[in-house]
């Protein structure tokens, strides 16, 4: 029997040969719970977050941003806790990406305040001159289309009723259009007048970005909060008053902190740091904890990227300029 003269038999054999690896590495894992384990700490996307995710997909953000932190030391230092399979149980499609032209986003949720994102999407180069991120101004100028939201949620089986979906949309609109919304000023700046009271595509995208990694962070924060507070209270700055260190701290501040706190530290997206009274406590330990571990409402944690020495130098610099005016 000569397979090379019988095209149909040849094709059948080729399919069988192709299917061996397919079945072992792709088909069987689909039915192994360990491939995509469910996790009780991960919550499905809300209706707004889901719409934001669809905008992320539509604009092809995954072409430049990954969403998996690998279990490598420097990667965990840069982005945070490495990605767990449970986190992706609701991700259809997955958005792990394949290229980091921009940074990984799997832990970006809660890292910055909403205002940071509104401003960054409007004009990334105004915040980071060397960035090659495109501006996504048009997202703030487009009303969020919610005509398919209920249908989408139903297709994904998130278990919300159409009323739930409507309530989530209404609640979210109420939140971002409220007078006391912390990022109101910048949202109003980038959103055209007619849409100020409405949900825009950018609102949804920011909601989605703020969700990324949030569930994992909540678990981690609950576990480590009391210990960290205790340890921080006892700390003292080894560089206090050291002129060289203050100079270095000034440089570090300009590079890392001025985007949000302003070049003069008088506050922009983040609070004014030149006052003696600080938002989260005034001792060296409090300041160290604020910078190292981050604070709710948009202060990122810097311990793993900057390290403790540099943080103390920044504090030494801040001590030198506080209460001057």
């Amino acid at each position, binding site marked *: 029997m000569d397979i090379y003269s019988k*095209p149909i038999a040849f094709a059948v054999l080729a399919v069988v040969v192709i299917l061996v690896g397919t079945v072992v590495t792709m088909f069987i894992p689909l039915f192994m719970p360990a*491939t995509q384990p469910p996790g009780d700490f991960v919550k499905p996307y809300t209706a707004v977050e889901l719409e934001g995710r669809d905008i992320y997909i539509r604009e*092809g953000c995954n072409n430049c941003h990954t969403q998996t932190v690998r279990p490598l030391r420097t990667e965990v230092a*840069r982005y945070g806790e490495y990605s767990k399979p449970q986190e992706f149980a609701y991700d259809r499609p997955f958005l792990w990406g394949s290229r980091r032209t921009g940074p990984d986003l799997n832990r970006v949720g809660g890292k910055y305040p909403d205002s940071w994102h509104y401003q960054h999407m409007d004009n990334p180069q105004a915040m980071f001159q*060397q960035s090659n991120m495109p501006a*996504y101004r048009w997202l703030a100028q487009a009303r969020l289309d919610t005509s*398919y939201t209920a249908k989408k949620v139903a297709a994904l089986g998130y278990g919300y009723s159409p009323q739930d979906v409507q309530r989530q949309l209404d609640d979210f609109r109420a939140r971002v259009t409220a007078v006391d919304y912390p990022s109101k000023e910048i949202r109003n700046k980038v959103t055209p007048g007619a849409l100020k009271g409405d949900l825009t595509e950018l609102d949804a995208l920011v909601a989605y970005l703020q969700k990324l990694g949030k569930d994992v962070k909540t678990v981690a924060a609950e576990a480590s909060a009391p210990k960290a507070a205790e340890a921080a209270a006892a700390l003292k700055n080894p560089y206090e008053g050291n002129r060289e260190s203050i100079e270095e701290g000034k440089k570090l501040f300009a590079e*890392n902190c001025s985007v949000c706190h302003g070049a003069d530290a008088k506050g922009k997206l983040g609070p004014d740091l030149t006052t003696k009274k600080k938002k989260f406590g005034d001792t060296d330990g409090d300041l160290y904890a604020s910078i190292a571990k981050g604070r709710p409402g948009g202060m990122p944690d810097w311990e793993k990227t900057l390290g403790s020495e540099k943080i103390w130098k920044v504090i030494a610099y801040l001590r030198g300029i506080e209460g001057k005016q």
Partner: protein
Amino acid sequence: MKSNGYDDSVVTGFTFSALFWLIIGLLVGLLIAAQMFLPALNLAPWLAFGRLRVIHTNGLGFGFGLAGIFACTYYMLQRLTRTPVAFPRLAKFHLYFFNACIALAALSLFAGMNTSKEYAELEWPLDVLIVVMWVIFAINVFGTLLKKREGQMYISLWYIVAMTVAVAVLYIVNNLEVPVSWFKSYSLYAGANDANVEWWYGHNVVGSVFTFPILAMFYYFLPKSVNIPIYSHRLSIISFWSLVFAYLWTGAHHLMFTPLPEWIQTVAIAFSIFMIAPSWGSVVNGYYTMQGNWDRMRSNYLAKFFIFGITFYGLQTIQGPTQGLRTLTSFFHYTDWVIGHVHMGTMGWVTMIISASFYYMVPKVFATEVYSVKLANLHFWLILVGQLLFTITLWIAGIQQGAMWKATNEDGSLTYSFLEAVAAMYPYWKIRFVGGLIYFAGIAVFTYNLIMTVRKAKVAAPAAVPRPA
């Protein structure tokens, strides 16, 4: 042609469709290469990098790549079976339908209809059209094979059959999705499963489109061009079966250190390393075919294209498996190194082989000689230099970027912010753009040369213009 009874009108149609999509895809590529260092070029929603990159990959992979493959397949299929294409009118329809699909695909991607799964970005209505298009193609492949007047199927036909069945399985399984409207759907699979299915597809569609049919061209057109039979039939049998077997195990090397179960990653590495053997089986077969006739590299411009092409294939298939190893992937993955790797395959291997196949095929179809061997040589050197400048620059860029991401200070903190690592890439991205420009110039020469070849034939002998048999 009338004289031999073969229907080559569809060969010509697909050849020039391929050239058209090649030019479009490269222009988009040049624009996004410039956007990397000039973000102000993201002029409108439909001209932003996130949408254009997908048009670049789909336009070249499926617009240019598939059209070139269809052109060469219809040519080789008829000659290797000594049978005219089984359904010439269906083949004609295939040509128009294919181009309509690609045009619609480009428009939908411009509009942001995008499933986000790499090389499978098209939304579900287009997926359905693509599957119909593929079935039409398969009917002609198998229809012609069943009517064949040649007893044995030559190596090239094995690869064509493998492509025909593999692409069908891959495309359908990976694109299973739940529609919510005409313009939006969600993947059937979630999270790690979706990733695993996607890269099983993503890796193997590259294999089935950029390896199987290109090898088919290589095994057919190299011996034809240099007029020497292939060195070893037995080696080609071993290469073929081990290649199609091992390919399908390796997709997860795109997912190293992700939350995908570790055993799938490890199996993928093992098979990736194994893949060097069948890949080099074809490389060696090509080199040994030239044994004793290496002077043809100087005298026969087609030999140059084929041998350089297969050499890039050989380099590609060593680089690929090694960069999948855990230590190296932890350094190189997500950097421009990988972009360099991909472009050696596409700009080196795939385009060189398709170029030479067209140079062989088009003059034969029109019973003429190529318009200018000099221009063909210019084309060769331009795309070679352009490609090398492009890929080597990105490899160096990838090494620097990987090192900057991993650099730490004495206290374990990170030496460079992400932005510093971006800023360090700008010189490389500019050089890459220049590499792309040189390459584009080569393709412009290629297109001109083929258009002039056809023109010359039409002027010399209007009767030689092919008509359906």
